[in-house]
């Protein structure tokens, strides 16, 4: 059906209005704030700041620490959830009694409220918690997962991976189902092992899908706030202060709006660059159903 220009404009109007009010306008607003001295605790000092906020940010060690912590959090979360998720995706495609049930169960972590997941793991990993007890049974005593400034961040990345590995698995399983059967059969006729079939025939065919999953996981893990917030809220000290937590603290605890806006802009730019690099490097858009 060919639609008239009038219909298109009218049909897009409600969505465009919301986008304008809640996405475009605030984004422009962030840019104006970022060039101001603007603190809610000191409203009288508000004024044009030029690039002061950006200069302050780039020379602020705490910002760079948060930056690298975010990178570390994402790296660990992806390094766990992608390989395990791909293997799990291949596994749940096996026809076996009870696999339908397992597939239904794998839905659960994805739809649980992230905040609740964080709270449960905080309880399980706490001192005297069930993980402590279980490790004690095999002779490992007193590992403080969330209380240690070294272990807290990786632990939280693992919790993030726990939530999203099933997502990777389910997407991969759907992709594997669509893999071209004749080429698998041909490979089998040539005597390929199961591993060779998977590695050289199935995986290359679902590559576009894997890149998309990588991109989504990357964005999601860089934006993760809820679970880290409820487990340690940035602590102990600042050892789990990732960029979102840092930004939340500077904006909603210190009310330093100008500086926080600058942090937000740097974050958006960094994420856009990263997304572009991933898309270019792996040609992610090829094969996206659009």
């Amino acid at each position, binding site marked *: *059906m060919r639609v008239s220009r009038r219909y298109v404009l009218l049909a897009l109007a409600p*969505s465009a209005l919301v986008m304008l009010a809640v996405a475009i306008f605030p984004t422009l607003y962030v840019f104006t*704030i970022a060039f101001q001295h603007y603190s809610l605790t000191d409203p009288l000092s508000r004024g044009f700041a030029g690039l002061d906020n950006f200069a302050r940010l780039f020379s602020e060690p705490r910002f760079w620490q948060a930056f690298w912590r975010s990178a570390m959090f994402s790296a660990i979360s992806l390094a766990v959830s992608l390989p395990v998720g791909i293997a799990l995706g291949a596994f749940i495609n096996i026809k076996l009694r009870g696999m339908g049930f397992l597939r239904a169960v794998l839905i*659960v972590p994805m739809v649980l409220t992230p905040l609740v997941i964080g709270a*449960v793991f905080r309880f399980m990993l706490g001192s005297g*918690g069930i993980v402590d007890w279980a490790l004690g049974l095999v002779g490992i005593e007193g590992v403080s997962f969330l209380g240690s400034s070294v272990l807290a961040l990786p632990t939280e990345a693992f919790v993030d991976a726990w939530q999203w590995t099933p997502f990777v698995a389910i997407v991969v399983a759907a992709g594997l189902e669509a893999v071209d059967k004749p080429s698998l059969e041909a490979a089998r006729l040539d005597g390929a092992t199961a591993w060779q079939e998977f590695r050289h025939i199935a995986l290359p065919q679902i590559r576009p899908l894997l890149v998309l999953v990588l991109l989504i996981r990357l964005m999601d893990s860089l934006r993760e*706030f809820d679970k880290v917030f409820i487990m340690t809220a940035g602590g102990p000290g600042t050892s789990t202060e990732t960029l979102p937590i840092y930004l939340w603290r500077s904006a909603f605890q210190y009310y330093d709006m100008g500086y*926080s*806006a600058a942090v937000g802009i740097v974050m958006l730019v960094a994420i856009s660059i990263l997304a572009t690099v991933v898309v270019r490097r792996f040609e992610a858009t090829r094969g996206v159903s659009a």
Partner: protein
Amino acid sequence: MKRPEIDRSTGRSVVTEAPHREVPAGRRAPAEAPPRRPVRRGRGRILLWLVGLAVLFVTLFPVLFMLRIALTAPANYQEMPVNWLGAPYLESMRTVLSGGFPRYLLNSFAIALLTTVLVVLSGALAGHALARVRSQRKDHFLFFVLSTRMGPAVVYALPIFLMATQLRLVDTYFGIVVVYIFYSLAFAIWMLYGFFLDIPKEIEEAGLVEGLTEFGVFRRLSMPMILPGLIATATLVFIFTWNEFFYAFVLTREVAKTYPTDIPSYFGAFRVEWGQMFSASVLGVLPPVIFGILVRKWLARGLSGGTVG
């Protein structure tokens, strides 16, 4: 029909597909069938079962543990090994239900429902128009829409909070619903756009010939045809809105407070009311878990912002 088969030489499992489309089961001509990996019934199958059980355990344990602690007396929180079959202690649940929590649940429900209806309606209109328009610029629009999903909520929350404060929209249903519409709109547009693309164009054209307006075609023909997609999208929007924490944390106080923002209040300075907090959590995660399992076929597509599948 997929069958699990174990490669005898490597012990690895493989998924093979019998050529069922062409040849009815049971009457397969042996000469045409590909060589099949021999089935091992014994050890290989048990190994697969063990892997499955391990996955099941890792996935479900935290959830079951939450449920158990919700129904455990405070004195026994740290009791090890966990007494899984002990009589349920209902006092925590009772305390939660007699406090402000039911109202926050109701808030969550009202806000998520209203958001869902508005998002699906405006998303369907936009998705339909985009699926029918032939213009190079529509790709730009679609990718712009997707890009609004990439930014972290923390970044948008800052200007939105300042604007909401000036407009006196902090802690109002209106304020949080508008933000949530934005939060899910990109996803809904992408998802519904895909469903509308799948409609055969002859049907819509026949509608026009019959004298329907473009909007009439949308309402009377296209919407009913993608009904399963509409339901799936609506359910997912409901789940996303229901689970959202950060915007609610920043933009609501008491009037429009949603269920997740109440969870941190159980963490006191000196003690944590674990039983009460998990009781509240159990009530809070029930709707998304039930809905999620109902629409599980669509979940991967939904969680990827409507881009996969």
